[in-house]
């Protein structure tokens, strides 16, 4: 019994002597030296890596600053060549961005929904055509954007043209002739636009004085007559005048 108590005390003492070093995972001097040299080498590597990085960053900052200056100079030169101010340039780009985004929205609409925006599309078409004649269109990337925009608007207009039709009734009942059809509120609300219907349906209408009941006529989009339409109308009026002139 005594021996057991004695042995327990001895074990407890051993634990008290060695436990702190075991718990603290205490290292030997050799291990300490090894770790010191290992971490010193690592620190030195990292320091030189950091120095190199700081140098690279400084170079990049200098490059960026120089590029800022070069860009300003290049833009100034470009504006001088175009003879416009920065404000005009910005306004043009902003307008172009606006039309691009609006046309993209409109292109997502169904044909039926698109009809509601006919006037807006026509107005936009006119304005984009004007923009294409602006000096800014000399810049190739702007020109490309304008061309793409014009194509997209043309495709919208094609949808509008395709969508709007008029089925000819009889003269006796509906008094339908190109003049009267053009005068209707849901076509052009303007009788003088009749040549547009004629020119838009040349496959059917050979003589603008003759249209037949049940013909389905396309009503092309537009608020003004094109050069060709005006010219066709003038020839028509001339022929009419000649025919009406008294024979001498």
């Amino acid at each position: 019994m005594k021996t057991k108590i004695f042995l327990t005390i001895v074990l407890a003492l051993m634990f008290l002597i060695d436990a702190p070093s075991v718990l603290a995972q205490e290292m030997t001097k050799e291990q300490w030296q090894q770790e010191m040299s290992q971490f010193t080498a690592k620190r030195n590597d990292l320091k030189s890596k950091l120095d190199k990085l700081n140098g690279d960053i400084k170079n990049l900052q200098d490059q960026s600053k120089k590029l800022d200056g070069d860009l300003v100079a290049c833009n100034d030169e470009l504006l001088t060549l175009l003879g416009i101010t920065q404000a005009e340039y910005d306004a043009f780009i902003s307008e172009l961005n606006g039309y691009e985004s609006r046309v993209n929205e409109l292109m997502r609409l169904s044909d039926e929904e698109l009809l509601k925006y006919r006037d807006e599309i026509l107005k936009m078409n006119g304005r984009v055509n004007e923009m294409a004649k602006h000096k800014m269109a000399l810049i190739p990337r702007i020109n490309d954007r304008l061309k793409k925009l014009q194509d997209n608007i043309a495709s919208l207009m094609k949808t509008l043209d395709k969508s709007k039709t008029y089925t000819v009734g009889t003269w006796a009942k509906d008094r339908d002739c190109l003049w009267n059809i053009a005068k209707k509120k849901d076509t052009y609300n303007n009788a003088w636009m009749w040549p547009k219907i004629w020119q838009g349906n040349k496959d059917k209408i050979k003589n603008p004085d003759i249209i037949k009941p049940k013909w389905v006529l396309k009503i092309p989009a537009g608020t003004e007559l094109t050069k060709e339409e005006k010219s066709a109308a003038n020839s028509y009026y001339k022929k009419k005048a000649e025919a009406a002139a008294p024979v001498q």
Partner: protein
Amino acid sequence: MILKNRIGTAIAVLTLSASLFIAGCTSKPSAEELRQLNDLKAEVTSLEKQIAEQERVKANLEKEVAEKNGQLKQCQTDKDAVKKATGQ
């Protein structure tokens, strides 16, 4: 019985002596030296963090410079095209 006790006592005394010898005679770093090592480790960790941050800054700057180079090239192309178109 007495012999058994003596053997037990002898073993215990020997074990205790050996333990004291092992714990006492192994060379260990001083507290100051351990502090130095800990400081060094902390410095390494801090440097690693700084490097990670500066690498991020560098990557952003590289991107920025590449973009500006692209813009400049574009501007020069525009300028050349306008010059050609206007006959200047």
